[in-house]
């Protein structure tokens, strides 16, 4: 065991397990809130993007392009320093809330584009088919279009969620205490790089592995066309 301890000292990591557990917990709840918010806003973005009114779709398209062409780090900085001066209650937000706002603003366009692609992936013939067998428009939507759209949308949404979880690591730069923040705290207290960062990476990989398991279960439940391709 001696040689192992010279490479990787589990005892020190063990002392910090609570810090990492807290960090992992924070990472998960921050990403969950961001996921829910960005899905809700993403639906609106998707619908607005499909609108034929240029006063609606052009600003939305501009927003999507602006987010996709700039780094998340800059967006986080802009919101972290800019929000207090724009919003009257901006000063009362703590780092985690600011981080959630920044990540939601960042993730919404991606979610919106995925949802839009999902809606467009259902062929016109499916709608026409539904209508021609005597379904009402509403029935066609709920029984024909939506089930297919959801099945097509879930795989990329899960992929985006995995990216969202990884993106929360950047919030450590504005002092949000999540998994990366836990790593940074351990590093600042112990100054041993190997144990700290390898542990952080392993924690992220465990969350990622859980994501893979969840998407496997969803895959079996939904079985949409997008899955059969893989």
């Amino acid at each position, binding site marked *: 065991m001696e040689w192992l301890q010279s490479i990787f000292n589990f005892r020190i990591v063990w002392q910090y397990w609570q810090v990492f557990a807290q960090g992992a917990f924070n990472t998960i709840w921050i990403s969950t809130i961001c996921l829910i918010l960005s899905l809700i806003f993403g639906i609106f973005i998707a619908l607005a993007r499909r609108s034929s009114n240029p006063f609606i779709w052009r600003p939305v398209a501009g927003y999507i392009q602006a987010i996709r062409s*700039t780094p*998340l780090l800059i967006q986080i900085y802009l919101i972290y320093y800019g929000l207090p001066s724009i919003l009257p209650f901006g000063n009362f937000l703590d780092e985690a809330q600011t981080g959630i706002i920044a990540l939601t603003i960042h993730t919404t366009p991606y979610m919106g584009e995925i949802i839009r692609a999902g809606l467009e992936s259902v062929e016109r013939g499916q709608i026409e088919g539904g209508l021609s067998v005597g379904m009402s428009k509403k029935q066609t939507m709920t029984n024909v279009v939506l089930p297919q759209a959801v099945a097509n949308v879930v795989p990329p949404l899960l992929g985006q969620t995995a990216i969202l979880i990884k993106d929360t690591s*950047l919030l450590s730069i504005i002092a949000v205490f999540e998994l990366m923040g836990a790593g940074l705290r351990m590093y600042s207290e112990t100054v041993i790089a*190997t144990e700290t960062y390898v542990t952080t990476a392993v924690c992220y*990989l465990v969350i*990622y*592995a859980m994501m893979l398991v969840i998407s496997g279960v969803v895959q079996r439940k939904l079985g949409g066309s997008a899955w059969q391709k893989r």
Partner: protein
Amino acid sequence: MEWFANKWAIIDQLWPFLLQGLWTTFMVSIIAIFFGSTLGFTLGIFKTLQIRPLEKIINGYLHILRGSPYLVQLYIIYFVLPALDVEWLKFDSFTAAVVSLSLYTSSYVTEIVASAIFAVPTGQTEASRSVGMSKAQAYRYVILPQALKMTIPPMASVYVIVIKSTAVLSVIGIAELTRQGEVAIMRMPGDIMFIYSLIAVFYFVYCYPVLRFSKWAETRFGSVGVDLE
């Protein structure tokens, strides 16, 4: 009017400084996409050869790189590898940045190349085998030329991801665009929002044309259907 004059003075003063940062961003991203693509193309081709153990190893590599945030990978390569006491792993910050970004890029490229090769219809392989080509010849003359064309649109998106990831390099002190902006803010702390907005504009001007190209290339060369972002 005074506001404009004031801001213009800032732009005028910071211009050469930020351009220098943009140049570093450009250099790092070009080097990283070059090495990352080379590694990614190799691994991508190996992944499609259907050799079981090799496929497992490459998949593990991809999972590790795609399952952990780039920030953590950067810290591991910058802080952990030098601590291993191996002479050639003692990176300076620039090498660490390039190495980590190249590895990160290679994970995307591997996936793209593999799915592009799989997207070439199997009839193409069968046809080239039946006219007497060896497996290597079939790859070289029939499959790869068709597959590589399909990789152009997603490769452009990957390049945008690389550019955006270089912003993270500011945490290890690489003097790229974001870092130059932070230094500028230390000099003029009153204009923090303006300077960050300016940097955002720089990134936008750099990335947006590449994204447009990717979109155009998709209509021109077709898409392989890998979701990157």
